[in-house]
């Protein structure tokens, strides 16, 4: 059995049957990282020793007949904006290059108690700000399907790690599409849960009212398994919602009867790549062929989503990132004239351009005299956008469309045009503004050989429906089994 590249279910089965040990599995993935990550650049740090120790512990427990967690022995890659105690958490920023948190994020505790093996921390756009991972101050991550292309972002490292078969499962965070878009670019499954479904405690905040942690996997079942473990109430996050977590991994294979699938015209506007358009149309046909009702719907405020999103995200970011001032942790400039200068010089040196740009926009949008016109207005339009989704979900169970208007773009292609980069987030940011769950699954390969993602959205806390609907497509197609040649 080829361990690297196998799905989570296959790996669990192999361990259950005694065919493989956790140590075999972890070693196989560490080997894959050692041989391939040089060219992909997904990991910022890998602690092989800790991973092997953890795997050995799982094997010991299994041999001793002790109870094992649901993710026992599975390697998981974790985005490097999620705090790991005693282990650097850099946010791919010079600012936090040497930051070692004294505590674990809630989801890290959940992974540990599930006996998962955290195999490494993955690259991202600095502080999760970006759609290409090019904004990482520490490393270039490449798309495993074509190393001249970006893996998407901001969770590009996690998506590329799964695509390159360096980990069967990974964790990302999604503020405006940062899980779904790289999943789409890298041909893997990536899911953003409902806001409040997964605790944000220990996730380094970008935009607190939009951020949500979610799973990557190489199939829908893997995402279901991982989400089931991540989800649930945490008293340390005031916005964590206390409602029961269904057994997603148990129900994911059950197709949905009488599924109503909404197709949003606004998500297939001009600028949508032809290959993407035709892949989406084919995907819709797959649902139709399974008896789903296809309904054309409209989300009339979609054209305002990008502006709304950037105002809110940047405003919150400007405040969340104010704490990085060189006083209590993080980078401190060596040369400064005064305390105020120390702040400004440390931040100037510690942050990259995109982070500065967003902080500047956010400070402006919140500043006296401008707040009503920018920030508060955006909050109002946000409600209109949420209302659009509420109305749509009166008539449909899920909304389908492209995750991103194009396949992966080339490294360097959009770095000088931030606005153009922002505008491409049109299909993903609605879910963050409305707080609803979304998933991206592979649904095609472009003429240039790059994966195409199908995005499905559902109403709040309808993750179970979303996963089952995604699986309905997946079981009829084989896109999810395609792997880039890199890892073959």
């Amino acid at each position, binding site marked *: 059995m080829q361990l690297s590249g196998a799905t989570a279910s296959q790996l669990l089965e192999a361990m259950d049957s005694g065919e493989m040990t956790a140590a075999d599995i972890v070693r196989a993935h560490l080997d894959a990282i050692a041989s391939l990550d040089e060219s992909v650049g997904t990991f910022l740090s890998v602690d092989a020793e800790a991973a092997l120790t953890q795997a050995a512990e799982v094997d010991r427990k299994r041999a001793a007949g002790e109870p094992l967690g649901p993710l026992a022995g599975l390697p998981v890659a974790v985005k490097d904006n999620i705090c790991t105690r005693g282990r650097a958490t850099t946010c791919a920023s010079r600012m936090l290059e040497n930051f070692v948190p004294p505590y674990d994020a809630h989801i890290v505790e959940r992974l540990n108690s599930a006996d998962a093996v955290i195999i490494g921390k993955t690259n991202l756009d600095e502080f999760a700000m970006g759609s290409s991972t090019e904004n990482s101050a520490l490393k270039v991550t490449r798309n495993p399907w074509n190393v001249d292309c970006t893996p998407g972002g901001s969770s590009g490292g996690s998506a590329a790690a799964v695509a390159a078969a360096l980990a069967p499962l990974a964790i990302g965070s999604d503020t405006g599409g940062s899980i779904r878009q790289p999943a789409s670019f890298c041909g893997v499954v990536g899911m953003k849960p409902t806001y*409040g479904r997964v605790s944000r405690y220990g996730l380094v905040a970008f935009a607190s009212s939009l951020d949500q942690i979610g799973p990557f996997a190489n199939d829908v079942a893997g995402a279901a398994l991982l989400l089931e473990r991540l989800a649930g109430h945490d008293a340390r996050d005031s916005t964590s919602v206390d409602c029961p977590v269904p057994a997603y991994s148990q129900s994911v294979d059950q197709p949905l009867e009488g599924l109503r699938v909404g197709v949003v015209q606004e998500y297939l506007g001009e600028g949508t790549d032809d290959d993407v358009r035709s892949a989406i149309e084919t995907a819709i046909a797959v649902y139709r062929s399974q008896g789903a009702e296809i309904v054309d719907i409209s989300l009339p405020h979609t054209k305002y989503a990008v502006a709304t999103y950037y105002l809110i995200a940047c405003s919150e970011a400007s405040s969340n990132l104010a704490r990085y001032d060189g006083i209590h942790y993080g980078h401190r400039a060596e040369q400064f004239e005064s305390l105020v200068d120390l702040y400004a010089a440390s931040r100037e040196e510690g942050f990259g351009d995109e982070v500065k740009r967003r902080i500047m*926009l956010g400070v402006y949008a919140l500043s006296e005299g401008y707040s009503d016109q920018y920030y508060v207005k955006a909050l109002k339009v946000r409600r209109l956008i949420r209302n659009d989704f509420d109305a749509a979900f009166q008539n449909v169970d899920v909304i389908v469309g492209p995750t991103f208007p194009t396949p992966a773009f080339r490294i360097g292609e959009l770095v000088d045009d931030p606005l153009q980069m922002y505008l491409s987030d049109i299909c993903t940011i609605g879910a963050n503004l409305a707080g609803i769950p979304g998933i991206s699954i592979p649904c095609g390969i472009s003429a240039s050989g790059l994966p195409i993602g199908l995005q499905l959205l559902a109403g709040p806390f309808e993750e179970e429906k979303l996963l089952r609907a995604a699986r309905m497509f997946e079981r009829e197609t084989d896109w999810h089994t395609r792997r880039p040649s890199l890892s073959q």
Partner: protein
Amino acid sequence: MVELSNEDVRKVASLARLKLSDAEIEHFAQQLGGVLQYVHVLDELDVSDIEPMAHAVDISNVLRDDETTPSLPREDALANAPKTDGRYFLVPQILENA
């Protein structure tokens, strides 16, 4: 195009505690101007009667009981600080009512 003068950008940079070079100021003035121009698309909408939506979920009254939990040892609290004397965080002299 929303006109953002270099002076506006300088003021924002000062509020944001970012020490920008003149070239960066110029550069940001242009880029931010472009983005601000774009976000004025929102002006097409009449939102006067709409309640702002600051949270993605509608929950309230999330309160915890008044119970203490262990604090970090001082060593851990100071571990990531750029400068300490082993007891306090150290910062350059704070100039106030000097």
